[in-house]
């Protein structure tokens, strides 16, 4: 009797072990291809998996791009893998961590490129560009830098995230000030801002002249000729305490103190730049082309202009944008390149994306075509995008892996303190640089 019980409890343990082992095996076993019938079929189609983030509306645009490609290329099937922005990067990294080429997408949307290229998970596109004669000169100057790592191209930027100045025509007319144009300097901006701002007797600001996301603040520094770091690829020191940077930030801190410029944190809590611009709480915003479709569907009376620059300064819109890349694990690189190069051509994907009104195309030929310049939609002054594009600069972000930590841990919090008025501009920028320099030294920069 005792013995029987013992046996039975042993067999229970064995049962558990068996069950667990079975589960583990099931979890680890590679998923067999659902259908091997393709081997027998005569016209075997190659399937390219194409991954991106996006809202449902954006994914619909991506789908129409895939459909257009498949219509032209009947031997390639495109399968879309779309995830919301928040989950996308973790998902992709996890797929890559599995090392299984059958689950990693062949063509992906990524940013920033350098973080991935440095890990060897991206295909070096140089040989493909050379073999196919793909025209890289059609990209906006310095935009392609965004997709490069150690001198080679790893990603083809889809669009250029350069900023322009949006202004509310109704408010300008109501106040009776001239519209912004190419000749405006920061002084003009300040003078007009004084007229556009409305402060109530209580001291409450019911309309700010200007709004801009805090994350774009390096625009001012670069317009004045400064930089965040001495070298955005391999820095040896922080350059934010240099005189150009201090002067530039001081100008906008004064704009905030005078109530002309809506404090960025305040703006994001009020719903972001698009919300405050549409509601008329802000008369002008500095933002990229991504707002155009929203303002158009809201039926706003607005136009765009180039961004005013300091009298001794330069245009410095950001040359950067998320890029299409090819996974180095891809089993179908030929087809992946065929799709990638079609995607980034004026006759292919670029035209469709541009027509959707969501982007400013990465290719100059697309931007200067009727698809962009004469789309029949507001804003009227689309030339502003072209002017900023021809003068766009790289350097708004660092092209090395640790930059996201430098930015997130030191630069952004320090910027907050300065713009809130917790510290003086010079002290705040010095404090940022002290921390960044210490971080650079700890992490062995310059490398």
């Amino acid at each position, binding site marked *: 009797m005792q013995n029987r019980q013992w046996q039975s409890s042993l067999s229970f343990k064995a049962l558990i072990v068996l069950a667990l082992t079975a589960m583990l095996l099931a979890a680890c076993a590679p998923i067999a291809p659902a259908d091997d019938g393709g081997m027998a079929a005569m016209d075997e189609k190659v399937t390219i998996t194409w991954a991106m983030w996006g809202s449902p509306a954006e994914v619909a645009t991506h789908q129409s791009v895939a459909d257009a490609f498949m219509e032209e290329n009947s031997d390639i099937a495109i399968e879309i893998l779309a995830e919301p922005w928040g989950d996308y990067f973790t998902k992709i990294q996890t797929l890559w961590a599995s090392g299984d080429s059958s689950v990693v997408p062949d063509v992906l949307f990524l940013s920033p490129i350098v973080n991935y290229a440095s890990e060897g998970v991206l295909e070096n596109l140089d040989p493909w560009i050379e073999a196919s004669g793909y025209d890289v000169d059609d990209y906006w100057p310095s935009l392609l830098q965004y997709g490069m790592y150690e001198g080679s191209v790893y990603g083809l930027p889809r669009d250029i995230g350069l900023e322009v100045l949006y202004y509310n025509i109704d408010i300008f007319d109501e106040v009776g000030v001239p519209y912004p144009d190419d000749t405006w300097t920061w002084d003009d901006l300040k003078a007009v801002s004084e007229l556009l701002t409305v402060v109530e007797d209580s001291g409450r600001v019911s309309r700010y002249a200007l709004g801009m996301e805090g994350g774009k603040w390096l625009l001012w520094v670069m317009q004045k000729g400064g930089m965040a770091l001495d070298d955005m690829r391999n820095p040896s020191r922080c350059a934010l305490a240099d005189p150009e940077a201090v002067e530039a930030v001081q100008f906008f801190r004064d704009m905030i103190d005078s109530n002309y410029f809506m404090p960025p944190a305040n703006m994001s809590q*009020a719903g972001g730049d698009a919300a405050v611009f549409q509601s008329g709480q802000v008369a002008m915003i500095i933002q990229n082309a991504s707002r155009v479709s929203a303002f158009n569907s809201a039926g706003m009376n607005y136009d765009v202009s180039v961004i005013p620059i300091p009298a001794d300064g330069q245009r410095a819109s950001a040359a950067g944008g998320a890029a299409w890349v090819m996974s180095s694990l891809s089993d179908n690189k030929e087809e992946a390149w065929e799709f990638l190069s079609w995607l980034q051509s004026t006759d292919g994907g670029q035209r469709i994306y541009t027509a959707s009104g969501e982007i400013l195309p990465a290719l100059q030929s697309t931007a200067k075509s009727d698809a962009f310049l004469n789309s029949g939609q507001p804003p009227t002054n689309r030339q502003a995008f072209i002017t900023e594009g021809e003068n766009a600069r790289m350097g708004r972000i660092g092209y090395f892996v640790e930059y996201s930590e430098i930015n997130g841990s030191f630069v952004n919090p320090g910027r907050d303190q300065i713009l809130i008025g917790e510290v003086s501009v010079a002290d705040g920028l010095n404090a940022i640089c002290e921390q960044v320099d210490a971080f650079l030294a700890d992490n062995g920069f310059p490398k």
Partner: protein
Amino acid sequence: MTAQTAPAPQHIAVSRWRRYRPDQQWEAYLFLLPSFIGFLVFVAIPVVASLALSFYDWNLLSPPEFVGFENYSQLLTNDRVFRKVLFNTFYFIVTIVPLQLAFGLLLAVALNQGLRGLEIYRLIYFMPVVTTIVAAALVFQWFFNRDFGILAAAIWEFGATTGLPIQPPDWLNDPDWAKPAVVILTLWKNSGFTMVIYLAALQGVPAELYDAAKVDGASGWQRFRFVTFPMVSPTTFFLMVIQMIGAFQLFSEAFVMTQGGPAQATLTIVYYIYQMAFEFQRMGRGAAVAWVLFIFIFIFTLVQTRLQRRWVHYETGGES
């Protein structure tokens, strides 16, 4: 069948499977198996993995590299942000925990006065507890906004009508005010929970104790201090431990309402784990922060359990 043979047929009649044998419980384990596997796969293994991970440098893409205790030593020696994060977290613990207990007890005592419509009030105060934190935080974000928020609008209006130079604080953009803003949101959200638990405890206090105290001439405050307070002290202890662990793990409130800002004023330990692991792709460092957090919570809970003997009163049993 005759009486003599009765015992044997009983054995035969009841099938082997149905017979209850107290020392054979594998059926029970079988029923536990699904939840056990779930616990193993989603809790136990990841916990062990995160401990191992904290000794590695890993960005998800390249193979993990063993670095020994470097993640920990970096945190403790030259991570300035981590120091700020610790300070913030302790700020939240010493403000949120006592205030939450005080509010909860206050509300519970008020509701325990034999009020009509007790259920309605209980429902109203408990509603925030079941409200989605993201929705609540977004509403509070607008509520606190200096230019267009309702709280600020009231203060602007008050200043304008009275002519006094009063301006609303810039709650979410001023590092000195952002922390109180998070505290207020958390209190609003969680006080209903402490209230409900306290209410249950209060209703368990025997009425004869109050009667006896009254006979002895105890005032209202004395009855609270010497009868109510000791009688609910086990509840206070329970809530204190639970709320302290909750405050250690504060994340969603800061994540949605202030994004850890301004100037890292509301960056908490758990937020920092998230930042390290998923924004800066430093899985090992993030895991190390998580284990430091575990050690903190462990020590604090241990200390509280020790200290409870001095002030927690158990009516029956006596031993803790």
